[in-house]
């Protein structure tokens, strides 16, 4: 993987897991700002269902690390109410599947209070937790959840792909004045990477990053799909096809410029997403690329998406549900040879 363009230059790097990077971000922000607190199911005594909040209760005590009953709408509403009057809650969804129970609070309260009050009340809340396909958790516990949020004016939506992003984007989200939906992934928590020590290291929301430079095809992908795209890129290298991989990192607001910039160079684009394809993130990305770079495209933008089905439990079906390296390879080859070249 190429170095991130936004990585700070003079900072010390530590190697840690994605989970530890999130944990570090939380700790740093809680030290920095007493208004920041963490609330959710099992975040305290149990130290998080996925251990993202490990050690926080011990370090910050029960005033700032609050275990809740199972009442997603209730405790999300508590977070929003607290944010209205100036606190900075970080609400953990044990998994984002359960955020549907709080969706009214998120969409009709958090996202709209600033607007409806003419800017009097803003809602600086972060709602975070894992989402997306996980291992054999089946239909109710394994699904891409971002589609319920990125359409909504008033929300910001983040999907951090690397440990470094996990830290830098979570810190920016906590400091943001607006509601931020921050969707991690169970399948990435154990992944290791370099993370700056600097407690002021931030990655601004709304900036995409070029993960790998290339000249022939732009592949846009995030989270697990980004890593599959990198694998596909390595393989295509051998065939002499040079892939540029762009990771949006923030889905709302979307950094269209970086993506368009890359497509202007490569003239071909493939968008990969794990979720069911119909009207997903890929549709939007394909649309704005086509609108803004139509005359420079040598082939229609290809969407590689998960199958249009709920997530099955059986291992083999589950494997078939989500895009593989092979489906990415096939799509890239289509945009390369269908047209132009």
């Amino acid at each position, binding site marked *: 993987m190429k170095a991130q363009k936004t990585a700070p230059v003079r900072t010390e790097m530590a190697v840690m897991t994605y989970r530890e990077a999130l944990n570090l971000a939380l700790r740093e922000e809680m030290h920095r700002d007493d208004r920041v*607190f963490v609330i959710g199911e099992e975040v305290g005594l149990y130290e998080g269902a996925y251990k993202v909040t490990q050690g926080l209760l011990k370090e910050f005590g029960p*005033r700032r690390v609050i275990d*809740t*009953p199972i*009442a997603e*709408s*209730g*405790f*999300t*509403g*508590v*977070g*929003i*109410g*607290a*944010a*209205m*009057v*100036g*606190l900075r809650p970080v609400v953990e969804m044990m998994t984002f599947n359960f955020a549907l129970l709080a969706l*009214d*609070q998120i969409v*009709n*309260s958090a996202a709209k*209070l*600033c*607007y*409806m*009050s*003419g*800017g*009097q*009340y*803003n809602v600086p809340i972060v709602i975070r937790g894992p989402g997306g396909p996980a291992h054999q958790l089946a239909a109710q516990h394994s699904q891409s959840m971002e589609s319920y949020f990125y359409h909504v*004016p*008033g929300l*910001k939506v983040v999907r951090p792909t690397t440990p470094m992003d996990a830290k830098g984007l979570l810190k920016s989200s906590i400091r*943001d*004045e*607006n509601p931020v939906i921050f969707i991690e992934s169970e399948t990435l928590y154990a992944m290791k990477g370099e993370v700056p020590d600097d407690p002021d290291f931030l990655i601004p929301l*709304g900036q995409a990053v070029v993960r790998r430079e290339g000249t022939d095809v732009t592949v846009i992908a995030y989270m697990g799909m980004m890593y599959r795209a990198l694998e596909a890129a390595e393989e295509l290298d051998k065939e002499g096809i040079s892939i540029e991989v762009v990771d949006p990192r923030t889905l709302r*607001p*979307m950094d*269209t410029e970086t993506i368009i910039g890359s497509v202007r160079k490569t003239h071909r684009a493939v968008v990969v997403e794990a979720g069911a394809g119909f009207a997903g993130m890929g549709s939007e990305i394909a649309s704005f690329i086509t609108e803004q770079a139509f005359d420079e495209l040598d082939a229609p933008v290809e969407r590689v998406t998960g199958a249009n089905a709920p997530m099955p439990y059986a291992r083999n079906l589950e494997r078939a549900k989500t895009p593989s390296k092979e489906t990415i390879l096939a799509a890239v080859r289509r945009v390369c040879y269908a047209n132009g070249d």
Partner: protein
Amino acid sequence: MAQKTLKQPAPSASGVDSDLAKRLLRDMMLVRRFEEKAAEAYALGKIGGFLHLSIGEEAVAAGATSVLRRDDYSISTYREHGHCLVKGSDPRRVMAELFGRRDGLSKGKGGSMHLFDKTVNFLGGHAIVGAHLPLAAGVGFAIQYRGGDQVVVCYFGDGAVPEGEFHEALNLSSLWKLPVIFLCENNRYAMGTSLERALAETEIWKFGRAYNIPCEPVDGMDVLAVRDVAARAVERARTEHTPTLIEARTYRFRGHSMRDPAGAVYRTKEEVEREKLRDPIVLFRNRALESRWLTDADVRAIEKDVNDVIDEAVAFADASPEPPVEWLLTDIYKEGAENRAREGAENRAREN
């Protein structure tokens, strides 16, 4: 209107004096007059959308708010003109909001259902039934987090009780000992649905027992009774961080909204007429005169003052211009130019 000194204890609900009587009567009459004028403006097309009047229910807002400090919070539903006005909001800016004008509390973006006023800690104006109960708990949480001694009053209708969020908010507030007064304005109907058709337990205050919190019913047409029960709840919340569930039994004299003609389908004319005999303003005015808290002249002075204030509010709202069209795209996010530039990009398709 609300007390200005923060540390002064809430006045006792007994021992009514002339000042207090004036305030309570004025608050109720102000709300009544405001809404009568709003109804007229609605008929003239100056107010759009939904308009929900609290006429008949003014004693709840006036009584409860009279024991609050200015730095206490209140939060409400879409039937919130009264709650907002008695908390201390400028009637002119409230009316301008209903008219959808730039000088409205929310710059005209919220309307009648979404009044907010940060200057008096009025937290809205929420139109999803039940959704603001968890928000109230969150405000209570923040007060506790900061070690403050404020309280939050959360007004809601009987219709919110069957919603899951009622249960979640009460459980969390009890469990965490949050200084929230859940004040149910039980007007016996949620739109056209009577209590009996909505709840397995129609004595709403009894739900408080399930969560082990203090709870009681009160005659919501009696402003002093409301004041009394609210004073005790506020005291408990301030000193012991104990939430309370109060069921104020009241009645709306008008239809559910201006689109619901007096509600003849689901209740009888006789019932409405009978309830109007309990008009909280008439009841309290008579009592105040009888008890010599007020003279006839006092009442006339209040009446005139209220009429003037509301006339001025209407004139102000009428004179206020529409919000500039660029405001469509402001206040979506709280942030500087960078963010607005992005929103702008997303709106490209519309703008050119």
